[in-house]
Every structure is written in structure tokens, then in C-alpha cells.
């Protein structure tokens, strides 16, 4: 269940943004991606999650082992918190959502429609979804946006528990999560330059 990335070059809007990326993520480990705004973290995570193809290089990981969470939470405003979680747990073939509800302190909100939650409550619900997927590799894009400090700690605990259970996590974030055991990878140095030599970037067939 380990994820490894070999010599990856990724593009956004036809332009290479990061190139020559190599890293691997063993079970039980967490890797935090850092880098300035616009460097290409989101694009990298989408590529790893299989939502977009890389320009070159490859992502090795067992299919169907990734749980992806992005900027938007995929919540249905007109379904209650329980219904939202139940749906995802059904889709991923697991049944029990009470652990997830407990881990993100949603017990008081279970019957509320997701649309009436505050920004931070929505985010907590979005994160609780990860627990019901039962997938070993978490790929998370700025997971703690809008969370208060208590909830950030709650999230860090959830990640830690996940790691202890043999899972792994790849996170992009700008703030400190208090996950001291996680490795940090600054993607800044991998920014693709104008004389990128990877074939296919810049539509260079057109040059």
C-alpha cells in the first residue's frame, strides 16, 4: 500500500508547473507538501489521485487505495450530516459512521442539514468522510482551512490514528498542523523552468 512517484512532471492549462518530482510514501508515514501559492500543489495532488494524467513520469500506487479530499467537500446541502456520511460509507462499501462522527465531534450536529453548517463545521464533516472510505492513502488539499485550533488538533489526532493503523497521508498545507512526525517536502525547487526539457510541455510541438 505504498505510494511512489517517479520523475513526475505535471501540467496545468497546458503548461508544466512542477517537474522531476520523486518521492515515496510508506505505510505509517505522512508527507506534508509545502510551497508558495501557485506552485502547483493542488495540481500534484490531483495527478496523484488519478484525476488528471501526468505529462511524464509515473505514479505508482495500488488502484483504489486513495481517498482524496479537495478544496470543496462534496457535501449535499439538503442532506443531513448522517445522510451525507452514510452515502459515502455506502459508496466505499463500509457501514459504520459512528467512529467518524466521534473523531470530528459531529455528534451534536448529526440531524442538521449540511447546508446550515458553518464553514468550519462543513470542513469537519468533509474530513470525517475520509474515515468512512476505509482507504489507506489519504491525499488531502489544505484540509484545515476554516478550522479553529481545537479542530486542527482533532484533525491531527485523526491523521495520527490513521498512520498508526498502517495508513499514510499526503497533505498540502500552508499552516502548521502539529504533526511533528511528518516529513516535509518543499516543492518549490521542482518548479518547472522555461527551458524544461520534458517533451510535450508548452505545446512545444507548436514551437
Amino acid at each position: 500500500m505504498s505510494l511512489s512517484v517517479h520523475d513526475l512532471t505535471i501540467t496545468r492549462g497546458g503548461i508544466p508547473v512542477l517537474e522531476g518530482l520523486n518521492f515515496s510514501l510508506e505505510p505509517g508515514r505522512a508527507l506534508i507538501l509545502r510551497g508558495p501559492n501557485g506552485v502547483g500543489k493542488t495540481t500534484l495532488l490531483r495527478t496523484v489521485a488519478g484525476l488528471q494524467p501526468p505529462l511524464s513520469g509515473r505514479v505508482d500506487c495500488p488502484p483504489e487505495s486513495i481517498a482524496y479530499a479537495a478544496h470543496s467537500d462534496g457535501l449535499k446541502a439538503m442532506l443531513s450530516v448522517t445522510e451525507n456520511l452514510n452515502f459515502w460509507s455506502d459508496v466505499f462499501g463500509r457501514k459504520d459512521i459512528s467512529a467518524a462522527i466521534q473523531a470530528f465531534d459531529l455528534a451534536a450536529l448529526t440531524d442538521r442539514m449540511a447546508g446550515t453548517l458553518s464553514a468550519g463545521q462543513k470542513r469537519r464533516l468533509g474530513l470525517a468522510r475520509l474515515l468512512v472510505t476505509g482507504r489507506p492513502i489519504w491525499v488531502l488539499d489544505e484540509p484545515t482551512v476554516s478550522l479553529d485550533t481545537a479542530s486542527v488538533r482533532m484533525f491531527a489526532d485523526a491523521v495520527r490514528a490513521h498512520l498508526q493503523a498502517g495508513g499514510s497521508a499526503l497533505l498540502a498545507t500552508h499552516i502548521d498542523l502539529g504533526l511533528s512526525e511528518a516529513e516535509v517536502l518543499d516543492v518549490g525547487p521542482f518548479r518547472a523552468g522555461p527551458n524544461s526539457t520534458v517533451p510535450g510541455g508548452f505545446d512545444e510541438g507548436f514551437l
Partner: protein
Amino acid sequence: MGSIWEYANPVKFSRTAGLVLPWVSIGATVTLVVGLVWGFFFTPDDYRQGSTVKIIYLHVPSALMAINVWFMMLVTSLVWLIRRHHVSALAAKAAAPVGIVMTVIALLTGAIWGQPMWGTWWAWDPRLTSFLILFLFYLGYLALWGAIDDPDTAADLTSVLCIVGSVFAVLSRYAVNFWNQGLHQGATLSLDKEENIADVFSTPLYISIAGFVLLFIALVFLRTRTEIQKRRTKALLARERLG
């Protein structure tokens, strides 16, 4: 001899197109002028249809082109989806506006012809109707190109649209034939009489058709080249921004 796919390289294509373009353009101009002038001024009036018959020199070539341009787009779309050559997708993009213009010309000349012949600008004759549907397919195809920002995404989506659309266009053709059968027998008689056309009429018609074909080739080369240049400018700008 190199494979034909060499020309799938945009740069190579641009260069070759640049070489061929003047000749094709000259050929198109000459054949069109000869065909149309001959057709309009040096053929006798038809004994039944009078001088209106001469509109055939615009109507038939444009109608033929309208269908064949879609067919060409279908082929280039398939090539793009299978081999992912950018030139192919861009050629489809370049051809579509020409195709829709041909469709409009066919529709307009048909309408102008229909006024004296059938006493009406428009009738829901199966052939005319399926042409109108073809026009709608062109319209949707162009609208989809226009609505999507990312060129590769747009190319993928329009290609699928073109392929699925072709199937439905054929289906519509049969549907329309069926639909108007029971009500309008014989309305199609005034079409479909190529056999009756005498040689005096047909020679300029063939020249005119050749002219339209050459014109189409010239336009597609030209427009594909423009599209390539646009992409090139965009790529250069993007690279500059990174540097």
C-alpha cells in the same frame, strides 16, 4: 518516403501548408471563376425552369461540401482521439465554420430557388429538413468549441460530440424521411433528377464543384495554420512568463 503522420507535426504542417496554399488558392479561384461564369452566362436557359436553374451552380456544390466537410471533421476527430495529433483536432476546428457557411449557402440558395419553383421559401421536405438538422449539429459543435477555454479539453469533447453526432445525424435523416412520407408524397420529385441534366449544364457544374472543393482545402489550410499560430503564440507567452 516518410509516413503521412509526419504532417501531424504542427511545424511541418505549417510549412507544407504554406508551400501548397498559393497553388491551391490559385486553382480554387480559376476553377470557381470558370465554373460560375460558364454556368451563369454561357448555358442556355432551361425550358421549364428558366434562368433560375443557374442557381444550381452554387446550390449543388455547396450542398455537397456541407455534407463532406462534416465527414472530414468526423475523420479528423477520430484521428485526434486515437492518435492525438494536434493538427488533426485543429483541422476539425478550422473546417467547422467553413462547413456551416456551406450549409447556409445551400439553404439560402435552396430557398431562393424554391420561391419560383415551389412558390414558397421553405417546405418541410425531407432533404431540406435534414439539412437544417445538419446546420443544428454544426451550430452545437461550434458552440461547444466556443464555450471551452482549454484547447485540449475542447478538442476531446468536440471530437466525441462529432462522432456521436454523426450517428444521430444519420438516424435523423431516416427519421425525417419516415416523418414526411405519409403527408408529402412527391414533394421530392423536383430534386433528384441529376440524370436529366444535359451535358451543357453538367460540365460547368463539375468545374464548379471542383472549385468549391479547392476553395475548401485552401480555407482549411489557411485556418488550420492560423490556429497553429495562435497556439504557438500562447505557448511562447506561457514560456516567457515562466522565465
